[in-house]
């Protein structure tokens, strides 16, 4: 059974169509990367999946018992609160029965226990992003949505982040992430979804995209794919 299924999702802002007729299905423990040029509609699609934007049309199916965890592109945390206070706040707002236990578990998983009492504003960019992701995962969601999660991180921090995300994937969490980093998409995603001007141009594996363009380098294949379609 799919953890997340979208059928014909569209979003209009007035006359402008931000996302048009997007469909895909994601199984338990699978990873989907959304790639596309700037303004393609990646963040709008993620916002609809996260429940922050109401689709203009289409259907979205989620597993009934567990929700969706969302990690926005910019760190969305309270810099004047400590790491533990941020986690506890969102655990309570998520309605988690044992919020303290959830915070304790998340501090352990993210390796932030030593920094639990530190104000988030005093943390490095990498640690702040870990808190950002930890908040997205605090409710132990079936699906985790990440919007360009590594764009502000150095390579070492990126590797640690993916190590952590992959551990969640191994535990059965499905992940959808938007990125401009094609290598990252190739490395961590089993499925690709290519968007341009709100339109879904491709859905399949990274290998399928390379094969379609007869190109072993995925980034070159992606650029050629877009160019052929006038983007």
């Amino acid at each position, binding site marked *: 059974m799919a953890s997340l299924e979208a059928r014909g999702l569209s979003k209009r802002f007035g006359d402008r169509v931000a996302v048009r007729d997007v469909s895909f299905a994601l199984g338990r423990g699978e990873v989907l990367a959304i790639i596309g040029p700037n303004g393609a509609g990646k963040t709008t699609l993620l*916002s609809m999946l*996260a*429940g*922050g*934007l*109401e689709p203009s049309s289409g259907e979205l199916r989620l597993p009934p018992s567990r929700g969706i965890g*969302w990690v*926005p592109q*910019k*760190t*969305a*945390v*309270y*810099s*004047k*609160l400590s790491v533990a*206070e941020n986690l506890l*706040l*969102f655990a*309570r*707002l*998520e309605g988690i029965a044992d919020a303290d236990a959830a915070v304790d578990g998340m501090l352990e998983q993210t390796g932030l226990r030593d920094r639990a009492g530190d*104000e988030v504003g005093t943390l490095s960019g990498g640690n702040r992003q870990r808190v950002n992701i930890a*908040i997205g995962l605090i409710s132990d969601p079936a699906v985790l949505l990440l919007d360009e999660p590594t764009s502000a991180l150095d390579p070492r921090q990126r590797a640690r982040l993916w190590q952590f995300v992959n551990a969640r994937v191994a535990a059965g969490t499905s992940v959808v992430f938007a990125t401009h980093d094609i290598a990252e998409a190739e490395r961590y995603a089993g499925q690709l979804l290519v968007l341009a001007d709100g339109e879904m141009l491709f859905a399949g594996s990274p290998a399928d995209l390379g094969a379609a363009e007869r190109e072993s380098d995925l980034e070159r294949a992606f650029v050629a794919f877009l160019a052929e379609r006038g983007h």
Partner: protein
Amino acid sequence: MALATLLGKDLRILRRSPVLVGLLIVYPIAIAVLIGLALSSSPALPRVAFLNEIPPSQATIQLGSEKINTTRYERELFQAIQPVPVSSVAQALDDVRDGSTIAALIIPPELPEELASAAQTAYVKVIYNGNAVNQSLVETAIESKLAQANGLLAAQLSQVADSYIDLLLTGGNLHFLGNTYDVLGLVRARTMLAAIADALPASSPLRARIDIVESFAQIAVSHLGGSKRVIGAVAAPIAVRQQVLSGRRTPLSNYAVAVAVAVSLMFVCILLASGMLALEREENTLERLRRGLVGAGVLLAEKALLGALVGMAVSFAMLCGIGLFVPLGWGRAELWLLAMAAGGLAFAALGVAMGSLVREVRAASLLALLVSLPLVFLALVPAASVSPALYDVIRAVSAIFPFKAALEALDAAVNQSQPSLAAALAHLLALIVGFGALARLALRP
């Protein structure tokens, strides 16, 4: 539940902003002490250079039998100004030019002579400097005290006129230029004429002519008595009897307390509510909260409640501080709190409406100041100071923002003034609903 969680979070954030917390504590204390001192101490008098050019020997003028000492009117003027004695007109001008005094008052040497002549108006000279407000202050002070001095002088001149009329009526001694004259007086003249007429033979042609003069004397006696009342009325033609049509008039000092509390409440509530909502955007947490965790209504209500609670605490502390200097009706404290709560929520509703329009705390603060400051001035414009049409516009603008209604509620609660507290609270409630709806609209995704 979500509201309480968010409120706890925001209070914790506030506690960790020492500058802001310090400001919230120091601000009401400082304002309360300043207002308290200002209201409980006498106002400082404007420093005015003073030159009296009348020689001491000529300070007293003789008007008929009355002696008028002009130094008495100096003392009257000194109640309104702080005189800085100078020795010459040049020094008076220098003092005004270099700003050590904001005006100069010069009593010319010819003043007693002009007064004594009673034929021309006597003048004093006032030289102004400084800004328009200072000029207006000195001008008003000197003119009001001159009016009082004129009143006193008019009363004395009236007494002199009375004594002349009495002399004309009943006769007596008139002292003039060192000589004493015996004035017959109309009453005695009429008596004498009557006696002469009686002594004349009945057929004397003089008798009819004396009767004419006697009846003239009779008419003059009757009407000169009435002219004394006319002169008295001319000395003070109009006096004021005050009547307040409805409600209880608030003394200016107590009204100042209500204004000060309303201004503090406004700034704290608007700045805090707009700033804390803008902070959610600035930290990108608004998007996260709005993703099904917290409804827009709850989020706006929480920010409004936060602003109103902190604003109430600050304003109440300020009112308690002012209460140390100015007598306040502590028995009505629950009404103060009611007025503060309604005013605070209305200001905070305006604050969240502003906060939902901007993305940064700094922009929210700037917007809050830009909008609220002019509204304070508009709400305090007196009806008589502008044209009726302009005042209608000002009233309409003031009515759609919370300051005037909050001021009326606080004035009614603290000073029992009109309009009633209930009317002001109803006005504030309407504004809370209106600005809440506006904020909800602006916060749409």
